[in-house]
């Protein structure tokens, strides 16, 4: 059996355990969709200007915004918390002692997270198409898919890297939420940013969430020709590469105590 097949097989076992874990299912799959419904019901009727001369319903804005949140949730949050959990129970050490290659195990985790992210984005898009006529323009579809894949990879790498900072499984949800919740509010995801100004704009643009959200929303709403957001990709890529180096250097297979 070659190693790639081993990775896919491992992802299949990860998924099997995942769908039997009610908490993981809820927080990864149901939680983002719940936000989508709540935000669109409460704020959905207003209009916002998303680009020069382009105004959309707030509900329409939330479709790609919550799609971006779903990707962050399935990749960053899910991987950081579940990997910390497996590390604390000793499951990671067990795997590390087996002949399964390290990269195949990590690839399996990321493959599973990306698959979850794609399912969620499809659900968000279907929701948008069904209720707000917010269909994806075909000319920006490739950019949207590319943004989705790059974002999923970057946030997966950040999730793995974050486990090196998380002291134990009990602390994992707190650490993860502390790192993303404030950013979700100032990064054009939970609250649409119309002409963001001052420090919110500056702080948001330092971190990858704002860039990912802008790229997802921009390509979904067809705000620029091809929808390709090169500058956003550069910042996301830098974070991804940084996370990769940090993860490779500091990742631990055993509990950190």
């Amino acid at each position, binding site marked *: *059996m070659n190693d790639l097949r*081993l990775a896919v*097989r*491992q992802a299949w*076992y990860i998924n*099997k*355990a*995942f769908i*039997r*874990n009610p908490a993981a299912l809820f927080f990864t799959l149901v939680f983002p969709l719940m936000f989508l419904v709540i935000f669109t019901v409460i704020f959905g009727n207003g209009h916002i200007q998303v680009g020069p001369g382009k105004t959309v319903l707030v509900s329409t804005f939330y479709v790609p915004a919550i799609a971006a949140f779903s990707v962050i949730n399935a990749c960053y949050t899910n991987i950081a918390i579940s990997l910390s959990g*497996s590390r604390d*129970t*000793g*499951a*990671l*050490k*067990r795997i*590390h*002692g*087996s*002949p*399964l*290659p390290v990269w195949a195990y990590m690839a399996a985790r990321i493959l599973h997270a990306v698959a979850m992210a794609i399912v969620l984005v499809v659900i968000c898009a279907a929701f948008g198409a069904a209720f707000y006529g917010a269909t994806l323009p075909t000319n920006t579809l490739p950019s949207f898919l590319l943004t989705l894949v790059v974002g999923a990879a970057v946030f997966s790498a950040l999730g793995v890297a974050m486990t090196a900072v998380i002291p134990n499984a009990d602390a994992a949800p707190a650490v993860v939420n502390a790192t993303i919740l404030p950013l979700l509010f100032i990064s054009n995801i939970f609250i649409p940013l119309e002409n963001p100004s001052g420090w919110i704009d500056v702080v948001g643009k330092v971190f990858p969430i704002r860039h990912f959200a802008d790229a997802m929303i921009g390509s979904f709403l067809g705000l620029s020709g091809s929808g390709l957001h090169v500058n956003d990709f550069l910042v996301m890529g830098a974070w991804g590469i940084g996370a990769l180096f940090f993860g490779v250097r500091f990742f631990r*297979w*055993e509990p950190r105590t």
Partner: protein
Amino acid sequence: MVANAVEVEGLRKAYGPVEAVRGISFEVAEGEVFALLGPNGAGKTTTVEILEGFRHRDGGKVSVLGFDPASGDRRLKVQMGVVLQTTGVDPYLTVAETVDMFRGYYPRPRARDEVIKLVGLEDKSGARVTRLSGGQRRRLDVAIALAGDPQILFLDEPTTGFDPGAKRNAWEVIKGLAGLGKTIFLTSHSMDEVQFLADRVVIIAAGRIVAEGTPESLMGRQQSDTLIRFRLPDSAGALPEALRGAARLDGGSVEIETKDPTRALFELTSWAVQKNVSLDGLQVTRPSLEDVYLEITRKAEAVGTPA
């Protein structure tokens, strides 16, 4: 010629200022059941985890089946089965799924049902790990270690938490594997287990080897003597002259330590028969491996450097 499955020479490992392993050397022959013993904190788990490839050594040479375990070489990992001190498997998978998952990592795994049966979990095959008792999880751990049909098996306190029946079964399984020519590297706090299983024993204390040999030879070098114990009625009168010096009286019970149990017993029983005295609860105890172990490690700790 018997090759060595494990060779360790001058192994050293420190955690910060604490020297856990201070230069130990030993070999394990292929097909041997080898036990590494020592009190908590003696450096056992550190040594085992270096051999398993989980930890890197600070100095010395280590080879397992001809490979350096620190390299993480997959050709070694596919021949090695490991039971760690703490269990760690996904709680949401079933026993059968867990065993299958691990079987998939090895080129020539053992049949799933055979592995599950070996550890006596066939009734729990479809049960999720969350539903297993502590002892059953431990047995699942052993099953995972056997899944790849390894040439060498590292068992770090494998029967902790087993009930006596399960323990006996596990011992039989380990004996059976040894019979198939597998090398077994065992650590344990149960001297019964070691006496039953091990061909050879190394005892470490404070990071150094303090004794090694077969269980029999270790018991043979024991300096304390055979112990004869019995209760003596008040009416019995004085013991025979030859035994009086060695006897310790505690209420009605008597203990005699002797280097010559045959003669001492002869003196004692012929005296008792002659005087018509009944020696209730007569016991003759050879020092057990546990006594030997306690004596050796106590001495080693007494001379060890103070912390």
